[in-house]
């Protein structure tokens, strides 16, 4: 009798092992392995760079202006979000008028109103207000360089004032996500508490989170844009900073989607039946140069460095996961134009160095071991070093961790005159971030992102003209001119554009990869 009972128990245990040992999940759940080291914060503008915006920010929240991620054929541009229309005030080019969408509700049931927009701007910019959140201030401030104030005109209209005429303001406001004042007041402005029960107007509602492990969203069935009500039952976000862990998790069926598989895992994933999706997007892996002291103050040396690089070799090294970078923006952006391209030409590079009298040309680069958008920084930098040394440079790589490099970047060239260049990859999603911030005298670090203090009256004039040009077509002409001028001046050592690789399980359907740092997960379904 005892033996029979034991056998039965063992049989049941075996069944339980087989069932439990598998990786069964509810159908329609999309589980994403992110590269982020931790779950992005949920109190509005997220941390963890644009990956935070991609998976948490634009899913829980909306901004007045959103990005059109519905197609992948051309670079994404902005589209109406919580605002249905915007225009510059006819009598005052320093004032933008936004018409707000009606009938939108926060996840907590409150109505979205013009007062909420005013409250949100106070929440992110006014350090005297009770709703002020310093972390949101820090996140949003970078995008609100020209913001001067906001005013409610009526229940469906708000006006934004800018310090100078700013034709690019709609792009900048697209990064400022709107959170629910109702919920904030309910939790008495306790942002730790708010993070546990965030409320936005986005296509997903927050369901639950286990700190550092996973965050789960469910569809917002009442989302105002009916075409973007999520098609999956549940979205689960898991931080997995280690590339090999992400790959294993996808292969074992624990996740359905991973961000940035490492180039050497691509063939293995393909042979396992995974979908590898790549697309050019506004990303720039390059070197920003020191224009105050050292060899790069000479344009010929900058050009020589650009001619020295064999970008095709680098593409091979990365298993094809890059596009050769010859400009600040990739050719897919509408203001790329016809810039001077510094194709691989070592002889020309040698001649230019000789002409500049810089032989051997000693330079040192501040680089990081890893970091957001940095791709494979160590081997890529080693290849750049060997290419440059082959034409007469003597390159010292000053390797540091990502945080230290960011600090060096923020402080600017004045504090680091001995550094010839910094290798910080940049998003070039909108015209200001793509072009202007790198070359505008008004953006000299530590005030802005012009690390090496490039200054050129012609460029500054062009920037002023761009900011004052409210006609999109005419502005594109000016932006194209700026991009071409930046190339002609060789303001950077251009190297690569990332291809935004991600690997998807064969069960994942309906994903359209946009040419953007952000992606729309709402049309995605997961077969059981």
């Amino acid at each position: 009798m005892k033996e029979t009972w034991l056998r039965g128990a063992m049989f049941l245990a075996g069944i339980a092992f087989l069932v439990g040992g598998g990786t069964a999940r509810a159908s329609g759940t999309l589980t994403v392995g992110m590269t982020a080291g931790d779950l992005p914060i949920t109190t509005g503008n997220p941390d963890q760079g644009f990956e935070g915006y991609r998976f948490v920010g634009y899913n829980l929240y909306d901004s007045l202006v959103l990005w059109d991620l519905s197609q992948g054929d051309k670079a994404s541009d902005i589209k109406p979000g919580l605002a249905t229309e915007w225009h510059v005030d006819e009598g005052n080019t320093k004032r933008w008028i936004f018409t707000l969408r009606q009938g939108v509700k926060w996840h907590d049931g409150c109505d979205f109103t013009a007062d909420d927009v005013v409250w949100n701007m106070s929440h992110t910019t006014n350090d005297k207000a009770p709703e002020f959140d310093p972390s949101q201030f820090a996140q949003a401030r970078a995008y609100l360089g020209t913001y001067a104030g906001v005013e409610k005109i009526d229940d469906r209209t708000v006006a934004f004032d800018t310090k100078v005429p700013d034709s690019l303001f709609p792009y900048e406001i697209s990064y400022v996500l709107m959170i629910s004042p109702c919920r904030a007041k309910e939790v008495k402005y306790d942002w730790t508490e708010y993070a546990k029960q965030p409320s936005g107007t986005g296509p997903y509602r927050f369901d639950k989170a286990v700190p550092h492990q996973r965050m789960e969203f469910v569809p917002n069935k009442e989302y105002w844009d009916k075409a973007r009500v999520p098609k999956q039952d549940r979205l689960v976000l898991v931080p997995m900073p280690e590339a090999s862990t992400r790959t294993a998790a996808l292969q074992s069926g624990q996740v359905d989607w991973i961000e940035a598989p490492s180039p050497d895992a691509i063939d293995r994933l393909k042979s396992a039946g995974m979908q590898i999706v790549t697309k050019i997007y506004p990303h720039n892996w390059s070197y920003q140069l020191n224009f105050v002291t050292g060899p790069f103050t000479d344009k010929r040396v900058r050009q020589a460095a650009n001619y020295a690089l064999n970008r095709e070799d680098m593409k091979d090294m990365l298993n094809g996961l890059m596009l050769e970078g010859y400009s600040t923006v990739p050719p897919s952006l509408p203001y790329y134009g016809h810039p001077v391209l510094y194709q691989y030409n070592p002889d020309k590079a040698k001649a230019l160095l000789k002409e500049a009298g810089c032989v051997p040309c000693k330079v040192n680069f501040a680089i990081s071991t890893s970091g957001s958008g940095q791709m494979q920084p160590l081997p890529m930098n080693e290849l750049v070093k060997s290419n440059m040394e082959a034409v007469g440079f003597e390159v010292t790589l000053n390797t540091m961790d990502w945080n230290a490099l960011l600090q060096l970047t923020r402080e600017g060239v004045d504090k680091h005159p001995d550094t010839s260049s910094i290798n910080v990859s940049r998003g070039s999603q909108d015209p200001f971030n793509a072009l202007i911030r790198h070359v505008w005298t008004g953006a000299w670090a530590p005030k802005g992102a012009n690390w090496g203090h490039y200054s050129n009256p012609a460029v500054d004039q062009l920037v002023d003209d761009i900011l004052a040009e409210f006609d999109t077509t005419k502005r594109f002409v000016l932006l194209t001119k700026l991009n071409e001028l930046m190339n002609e001046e060789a303001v950077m050592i251009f190297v690569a554009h990332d291809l935004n690789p991600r690997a998807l399980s064969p069960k994942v359907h309906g994903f359209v990869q946009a040419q953007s740092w952000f992606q729309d997960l709402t049309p995605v379904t997961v077969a059981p």
Partner: protein
Amino acid sequence: MTYYILRRILYAIPIAFGVSVVCFSLVYIAPGDPLQTVMPPDATAETIAIVKHAYGFDKPLPVQFVIWLGHVLTGDFGMSIATRRPVFLEVTDALANTALLALFAAPIAFFTGYAMGVIAGCFPGRWLDRLVTGVAVMGVSLPNYWLGIVLVIVFAVQLMLLPATGMGPNGSTGFHIYEWSSAKFLVLPVITLAMIPIGILARTTRAAVAEVRSQDFVQTLRAKGLSEWAVTRHVLKNSLPQVMAVMGLQFGYLIGGSILVETVFTWPGSGFLLSKAIINRDVPVLQGTILTLSLVFVATNLVVDLLQSLVDPRIRRG
């Protein structure tokens, strides 16, 4: 004995204070900004100044230290800059997760390592000794993150028997040790984590046993006509204090969490927390974690010292 315990506890107080000073200062020596996680790369000097003021990082370091120590003494470790959760909660959650791994890895490692060491020590120079020593050296030399990745490839990717990463299935909000759906997440990290202490303990035990066996009193015991088993018992007892000291240290390391193993398995323990805090320069978490782990080390050593004194009366008298 009471006097001995009190004396050891009193010794621990200046050590703990020293640790708090060092761990507070250390994090400021490294380059980088404590507000990196909340600050975009393009933050202007003006933005940084306002945010530093809001977080209290604009005060002189000694003032920050006194404020921090005052809060720590009342159990308030501050708030994490990155996650906005109380540091105390961050550290205790992470420690509990690491302790879970350690509680399974330690007995496996200690029993296996000790047994291997005793066998090797009792047969010095023989093939059994060479075999055990070889395995022990391999255990110490194998990079455990590599072993972890190999185990994942075999058991998660190929055989699909165990999960590759994480600490619990989708939908769960806690870890349930009695449920296989949760418990299976423990298996691979525990095995990986146990490998290094196994090697270290096997080698330490072997050396201790071999050393005691070469002492005169063992010869005397044999001359008295004691059986080999009875002699071995004496040898083991005499070698135990040395082995226990190493076990204590190893337990401290296990509780401290392995950054590599926890990163490979995305296990949200103290090592993983520490590595993220270092990368993000999350100063309050860094200080809270280092201080707590150091205190755990001090406490573990204290407990081991007391246990050693119980086993070996000579230590008490010394």
